[in-house]
């Protein structure tokens, strides 16, 4: 990574997506704290009438944090990292530049449509694919535009070898495209019924068990290509950049990349263990899930070893703290996931709170930490100002870390407690607990989770304030910082 002093990069689109990431982060996680509190204190279900129940808000939470916060983060970092590692500025092609603006406009429309339709209860009801067909079509257009810009930039590039991050962005583009098209295949009812009923309504192309298979082939790989692959793209750029260290091993990067690509897609059926899906597929899902530890830890260890000999930076630079902890949380959730994918463990874990526990040590500790550190690293460079407050960043780190730990430890205990109670039998083989017993027992854990979530959300507000102040009131920088981000 040489200095980029000669080229003037165009960051206008980067800034737009940075702001949407911040805003959707706040909205999505505020809803997260609300639904977490509703499980502990059900009377909170009635704040917004029909629109405020846990069940209506839950998909709003998942969709806003995934398609709002995370996808904004992916686009923001791609437009920044892409220009820099390919050594080409968006300003060099008016066409590509215009496309990015068009994409942003469509993205805002899709996001608004998503929030309104889910709020009204218009949903295809498949997890992480709730949008009805008109929005699905819009998403396809947005994605295609992204592909054109990505390969357009690649076509214009000055640096011939694609940097590691680019591999992962290309894979994100292709993986989501393929899976999204298959999973959202649906038949709009208005065209076949002689114009009856709601125009946006559709039925799935697949039925029952087949539908489940396609859905979790997608669902699992939404995790792969939204929560993992592009996030690895980020850490491969920002950690070496921020620390001034070269990536530890290029060979290990190659091995983990191709390993991850090959193995990930097989593992989807671990969401359907003990279901009516054919047994051999379930076993394949289990086995490949366990093998998945190798490429996952490969990337994570590669990142940690990148810090070799420079561990003192961990105490000096809060951004390094965020990123090192992120790769550690990545290791945690990619160890936990395969454990849950073992059939005998899944028999207890599935359907319980251990699953949201697993989800959130990944998304809070890994995904959101990386997106926030990426944005923080970019801020001084795109706004040409010093980061507003180092101590704020430092406190954010500790508050959020405590938040994540409270979240996943309470859910581990809750999940395993519940899983064991569901199956507990007395000496004659009769069930010991009625279902409601297994709900009441969770109250303390739900409360702890809500507190953890609130701490994390507090950190998000501190982060948003810090970015905002950096953009408007940070000390101006003469020169672009080379490695470590300057902070006051």
């Amino acid at each position, binding site marked *: 990574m040489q200095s980029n002093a000669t080229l003037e990069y165009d960051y206008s689109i980067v800034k737009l997506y940075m702001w949407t990431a911040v805003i959707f982060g706040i909205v999505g996680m505020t809803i997260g704290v609300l639904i977490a509190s509703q*499980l502990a204190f*059900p009377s909170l*279900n*009635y704040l917004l009438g*029909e629109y405020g*129940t*846990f*069940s209506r808000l*839950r*998909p709003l939470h998942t969709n806003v944090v995934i398609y709002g916060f995370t996808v904004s983060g992916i686009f923001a970092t791609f437009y920044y990292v892409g220009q820099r590692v390919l050594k080409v500025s968006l300003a060099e092609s008016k066409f590509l530049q215009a496309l990015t603006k068009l994409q942003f406009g469509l993205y805002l429309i899709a996001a608004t449509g998503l929030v309104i339709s889910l709020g009204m*209860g218009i*949903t295809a*009801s498949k997890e992480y694919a709730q949008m009805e067909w008109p929005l699905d079509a819009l998403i396809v257009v947005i994605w295609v535009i992204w592909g054109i810009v990505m*390969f357009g930039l690649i076509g214009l590039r000055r640096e011939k*070898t*694609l940097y590691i991050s680019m*591999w992962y962005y*290309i894979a994100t583009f292709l993986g989501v495209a*393929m899976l999204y098209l298959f999973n959202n295949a649906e*038949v709009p*009812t208005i065209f*076949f*019924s002689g114009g*009856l*009923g709601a125009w946006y*309504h559709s*039925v*799935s192309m*697949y*039925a*029952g*068990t*087949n*539908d*489940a*298979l*396609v859905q979790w*082939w997608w669902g699992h790989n939404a995790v792969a290509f939204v929560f993992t692959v592009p996030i690895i793209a980020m850490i491969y750029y920002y950690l070496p950049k921020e620390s001034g260290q070269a990536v530890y091993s290029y060979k290990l990067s190659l091995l983990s990349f*191709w390993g991850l*690509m*090959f193995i990930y*897609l*097989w593992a989807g*059926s671990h*969401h359907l263990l003990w*279901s*009516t899906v*054919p047994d051999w*597929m379930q076993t394949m899902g289990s086995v490949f899930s366990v093998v998945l530890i190798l490429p996952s830890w490969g990337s994570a260890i590669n990142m940690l070893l990148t810090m070799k000999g420079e561990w003192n930076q961990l105490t000096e630079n809060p951004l390094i703290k965020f990123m090192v902890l992120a790769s550690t949380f990545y290791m945690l959730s990619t160890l936990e996931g395969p454990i849950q994918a073992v059939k005998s463990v899944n*028999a207890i874990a599935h*359907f*319980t709170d251990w*699953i*949201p526990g697993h989800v959130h040590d990944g998304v809070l500790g890994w995904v959101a930490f990386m997106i926030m550190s990426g944005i923080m690293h970019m801020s001084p460079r795109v706004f040409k100002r010093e980061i507003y407050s180092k101590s704020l960043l430092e406190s954010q780190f500790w508050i959020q870390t405590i938040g994540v730990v409270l979240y996943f430890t309470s859910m581990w205990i809750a999940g395993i407690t519940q899983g064991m109670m*569901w*199956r507990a039998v007395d000496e004659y083989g009769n*069930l010991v607990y009625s279902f*409601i017993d297994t*709900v*009441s027992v969770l109250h303390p854990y739900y409360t702890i989770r809500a507190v953890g979530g609130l701490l994390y959300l507090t950190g998000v507000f501190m982060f948003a304030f810090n970015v905002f102040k950096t953009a408007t009131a940070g000390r101006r920088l003469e020169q672009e910082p080379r490695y470590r981000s300057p902070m006051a």
Partner: protein
Amino acid sequence: MFHWLEKNPFFFAVGVFVVIAYAGVIEILPNFAEKARPVKGLKPYTVLQLAGKEVYKKDNCIACHSQLIRPFKSETDRYGHYSLSGEYAYDRPFLWGSKRTGPDLHRVGNYRTPDWHANHMWNPKSVVPDSIMPAYKHQFTNVADLETAYAEAVTVKKVFGTPYGPDIAPGKAAYEKELKTKILPEALKIAKRMKRDDLVKMVEAGKVPEVVALVAYLEKLK
């Protein structure tokens, strides 16, 4: 090793695509060759039940309830026979869920009654004092979208060959006829079993409350 690939984005992308598509070809496609076969005697959902399924989707019961009984004694003791693939043959989309904040519902029609549901949807704590489920009072006044449910029945019949009779046909006239002869009478029966006069009155006036459709759907889950 692969240094050539990293300089040739086109072949790189093709390589990635092949590697990720491979698993789908081997693992997912074979099951599609074998079309979902209904278990013997399985009837497609009536239009009223389809409308109820839409309410189930709209208020997103799937956030907390599964419809998949796994083959363990602890589950079959609690919920009934374990689920069979053929029972889902008409489920588009499938509604298995991934989280049991509340109990499984795949056979709830076996052990709850319409009037129990009426009390429960109005105020869960009245029948299960410790329940953390929200009350869904708006379902008692919102009117179910029967026309869209009918459109769905027509679509699955035409596109996927779901075995509905000749009465399920495109167009407004066919819908109006079905509404009068089948849907409303079926709804009235359910409403009466729910033992609430306001619901019966609404159905008699030709408007089916969401909760009546929902209960028709829950009754079908056996």
